[in-house]
């Protein structure tokens, strides 16, 4: 508890020093990026407010990492503008943009100690040694890295390395934190812990954070605002619950939520006025005796809290998620009924049909 009080005091100092500084907003205007003939980003417009936690999510190859690298200044955009804190930074080198970045592979300098890894950026910026030491102290305290400051990265575990990488970003006191899939090299248990740590850091630092991931669970749990990208375009921007409850396109509907939303061809269901019908697995009830759709059980997954049932029906496969424990025999017949009013209809272009 004593250490905790110390951390709070340090955070207070950290905040008071940055008290008058705006934390950094970001504006992206019609960013395009092409590698040769391949268009990776096809016109991205986005606004991020001070202190927001924004997550770019999408399948691999959707351009999310490229967009992050363009914001960082590691890649030049083919056209379009980037504004950080209202200032155009198109031609500003990465070190001068007031950003810090955490990489998927940690990217720690292997020949430097933890302390020097964290301090290098400040040293390059010509900050006095006292201030560097103080800032490293604050960051290492926040991340419980005090005991490891003199070690080399090779002597640390994966989780510790990731914390050093985050610490290296914190000491820079950036206006904008950029995270490039920071958790994908960690094992499942560590991923959850580090996720909580990042959420805590965001609350403590009140800094603007942009985070790239392909894992929609990370996106749902951390974000204030999720940006779903697909094939170099923004599909939808919104809070996690907005995306879950009212997806604007088939893509977003299928991407957000686990297990995936059932997307069924409307003609096979004999419905007109829509191309595709979407029903989330958790919005379906089953019965052994009667229901709207008849199916046979292909497979049952018991997760303890949930039971997931895979059905084969006349119109194709259907996934059902039930809460609690249920026992159904494989190959047995089961009737499924969607919850009224919780189905989604999409038109030929994949856009949602309202009402």
């Amino acid at each position, binding site marked *: 508890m004593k250490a905790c009080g110390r951390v709070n005091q340090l955070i207070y100092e950290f905040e008071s020093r940055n008290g008058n500084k705006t934390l950094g907003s970001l504006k992206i205007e019609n960013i395009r990026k092409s590698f040769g003939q391949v268009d990776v980003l096809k016109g991205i417009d986005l606004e991020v407010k001070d202190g927001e936690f924004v997550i770019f999510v999408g399948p691999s190859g959707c351009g999310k990492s490229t967009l992050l690298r363009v914001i960082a200044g590691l890649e030049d955009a083919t056209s379009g503008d980037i504004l950080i804190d209202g200032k155009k930074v198109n031609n500003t080198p990465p070190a001068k943009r007031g950003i810090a970045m955490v990489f998927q592979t940690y990217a720690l*300098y292997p020949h430097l100690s933890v302390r020097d890894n964290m301090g290098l950026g400040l040293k390059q910026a010509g900050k006095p040694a006292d201030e560097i030491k103080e800032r490293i102290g604050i960051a290492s305290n926040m991340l419980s890295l005090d005991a490891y400051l003199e070690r080399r990265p090779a002597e640390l575990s994966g989780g510790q390395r990731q914390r050093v990488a985050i610490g290296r970003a914190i000491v820079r006191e950036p206006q904008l934190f950029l995270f490039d899939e920071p958790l994908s090299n960690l094992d499942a248990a560590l991923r959850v812990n580090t996720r909580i740590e990042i959420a805590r850091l965001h609350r403590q630092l009140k800094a603007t954070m942009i985070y790239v991931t392909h894992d929609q669970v990370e996106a749902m749990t951390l974000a204030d605002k999720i940006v779903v990208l697909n094939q170099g375009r923004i599909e939808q921007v919104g809070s996690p619950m907005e995306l879950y409850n009212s997806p604007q396109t088939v893509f977003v509907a299928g991407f957000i939520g686990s297990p995936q939303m059932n997307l069924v061809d409307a003609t096979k269901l004999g419905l007109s006025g829509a191309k595709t019908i979407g029903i989330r697995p958790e919005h379906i009830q089953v019965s052994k005796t009667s229901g709207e759709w008849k199916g046979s059980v292909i497979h049952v997954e018991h997760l303890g809290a949930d039971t997931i049932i895979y059905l084969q029906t006349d119109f194709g496969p259907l996934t059902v998620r039930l809460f609690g424990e249920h026992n159904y025999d494989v190959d047995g017949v089961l009737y499924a009924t969607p919850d009224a009013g919780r189905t989604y209809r999409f038109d030929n272009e994949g856009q949602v049909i309202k009402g």
Partner: protein
Amino acid sequence: MAKPTASPVRTGLVHLALIIYTLIALFPVFLTVINSFKDRSSIFRDPLGLPTPSTFSLIGYQTVLGQGDFVLYFQNSFIVTGVSIFFVLLFGAMAAFALSEYRFRGNTLMGLYLALGIMIPIRLGTVAILQGMVAAGLVNTLTALILVYTAQGLPLAVFILTEFMQTVSDDLKNAGRIDGLSEYSIFFRLVLPLVRPAMATVAVFTMIPIWNDLWFPLILAPSDATKTVTLGSQVFIGQFVTNWNAVLAALTLAIVPVLVLYLIFSRQLIRGITSGAVK
């Protein structure tokens, strides 16, 4: 790390083969060294015999060191080899960094062009090189040798180092960029330390042909002030009489520095490999 499945017989055979190869490879060196310590008549009477108290003689070494110039020849060899290695590593690594790091038009073509020298021996251009050196007034200077050897060593260096530099993670270089390191700092402070084993390999490959070369010193810098050890030893080989004691002693002496340099580089090489394994 030994595989647990390797049988002792198999390992024994591998070792046997390696030992036989080592013996064959070392035999000429061994012969040179033992004979350099014998007097002239016993070199011819019993070339394979070890020096005994009755045949032991340092006459070869006395002749070589008595000539006086040999210290200078050694110095020349050291300067030429050392400076050439330095330039080969520096320019080779820089070119390799550019080829592996930056996307630009003609990148692949440039890489092929730089690697072309591996396939075409530089000696084919001897006449043109000599003409060039004469025109530039560089004949009988160590500079001429350094220039030629740097050119000779670069293709392989660029080729090997490009491959290695591609293995250095992009994230690391980008982290450096965000921390405000210049491209030069990224090259010298992040990338070079990580490709040190490859640098040691290139240094060894570059060093040995340079040190042993007779061709270019003979053609470009045969003057007494610029002779290298290999060329210097030739003064004892006459058309009619060869002073074998002196030749063998000079060659034995010439092995020592190469051996020392090799040990230094190979230690680097091993250190690089093991430090990578721990990570």
